[in-house]
């Protein structure tokens, strides 16, 4: 009911290249970063453990990202179910 949180993050940056985004991601303990083609300055930050989920948001990780001057916005991705038909 309450939904679950993943360690995938959507991060909006100030005019950063994919390499700079990747560096920012690894500095903060993520595995990698990938630019979203359909939006400006939006990146998908991949966690090292892809399948880990949690009940509560990772406030500490998020606050650390938000403090970085290169970061505009941080959205921790909620996990939800989709089923094969």
């Amino acid at each position, binding site marked *: 009911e309450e939904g679950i949180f993943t360690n*995938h993050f959507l991060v909006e940056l100030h005019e950063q290249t994919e390499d700079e985004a990747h560096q920012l991601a690894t500095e903060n303990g993520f595995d990698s970063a990938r630019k*979203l083609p359909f*939006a400006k300055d939006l990146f998908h930050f991949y966690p090292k453990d892809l399948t880990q989920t949690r009940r509560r948001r990772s406030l500490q990780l998020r606050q650390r990202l938000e403090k970085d001057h290169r970061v505009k916005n941080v959205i921790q*991705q909620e996990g*939800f179910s989709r*089923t094969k*038909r």
Partner: protein
Amino acid sequence: GYRDLNAIDTNMNDPLFSKQWYLINTGQADGTPGLDLNVAEAWELGYTGKGVTIAIMDDGIDYLHPDLASNYNADASFDFSSNDPYPYPRYTDDWFNSHGTRCAGEVSAAANNNICGVGVAFNSKVAGIRMLDQPFMTDVIEASSISHMPQVVDIYSASWGPTDDGKTVDGPRELTLQAMADGVNKGRGGKGSIYVWASGDGGSFDDCNCDGYASSMWTISINSAINDGRTALYDESCSSTLASTFSNGRKRNPEAGVATTDLYGNCTLRHSGTSAAAPEAAGVFALALEANPDLTWRDMQHLAVLTSKRNQLHDEVHQWRRNGVGLEFNHLFGYGVLDAGGMAKMAKEWKAVPERFHCVAGSVQEPRKVASDGKLVLTIDTDACQGKDNFVRYLEHVQAVVTVNASRRGDLNINLTSPAGTKSILLSRRPRDEDSKVGFDKWPFMTTHTWGEDPRGAWILEVGFRGDAPQRGVMKEWTLMLHGTQSAPYIDQIVRDYQSKLAMSKKQELEEELDEAVERSLKSLLSKS
């Protein structure tokens, strides 16, 4: 939709070809001869999907499979849940990740290589977008998948969705909606990505209008029939379904299933569910795209409406009806079963439909009680924004954006009747949905049933309860959204078959255009005198 089967001399040496009744139905496995996708006619015209790329958004494709490898588009394949460019299906000991490989075979299995069967568009390229084998979905994974390489991928096929448990109301989240809008506006060089969706497996307990993917205007929602034209039982019906193809899930006969490729080089006769229907439709659309690469995402929907055939589709529950411009539709099957030959022939000479406009036709904002017996009837009388820039004269999609709460959401029934008298079931009873808190909050119920109609006049929304115990509810608001064209979409099309729906629609448009011209000139004469 009948043709002389002997006239079809399509021979393939693939061992399962004769069991692919959805391609050519000769009555095998107790089927109905002639009830198929009519791909033979399109193939004979030379359309086999060359130059078209279809992405299967699922759990990966066995790209080493000898029947798929030659058509696999590795460059357009990716895994967004783990950032992996080689999205091979992950091993499970219960064969769970075979879904994408089975879907891929229906579209692009190679022909005449003496392996498994043949894809609907056997010369197309198939890409694997692996995004379904992780324990959860996220908005960013979905959005990235549905917008992957939109200048390379022409068609995205999805055989998944929110849980079909008959009590879920869910759809694309913010980023995915943004990605889909981007796809239909900028994909394929501005002609728009084609999104094909399997309508749902919730059967009579569910309603695919509660699935925001299937009921989106930007996706072509596909239902399925079995080889004798009956519903496959698990099919969900709803007013946003545009057309149908074939699957199984009802007959015990092992050969009544969908024959296709399977994991690790295998073949299967048992692919089923509406999952099998979407890739077949994607294959048919690929044949139409080869016939005319300039088709826009809307052209594809118009062609599907005009060339789908009632054929021998039989729905025990919903009658076949005609809408206000004579187009025959069924609540479960949409406008009928896709006809690949008919679609490719019409696509070849098709002229892009006129620009699309959007009109907020009206809104009722005062909360109104929904009593346990009887119906709440709300009317919006509209001129469809006539006289304004966004006037809509010929309908494509209609949305009723509804906010309603109920003591038992599953007992709610919502019907919409157009000025031409076409009645659409926007929401049917969902006996398992006992929600009493969330309700529907600005939920965009969509119908395709009024396709081509003149939207000016009174639209009637009826809200009531159907169930075992008395319920009560509050209808907080509803807004009517009209989407369509200002000028007649078929008036310039070339008619080859004077028995066709196109001929009927074009004739109707000519008559109406003439009437309206006469009316305008009379008015101007009267105003002068």
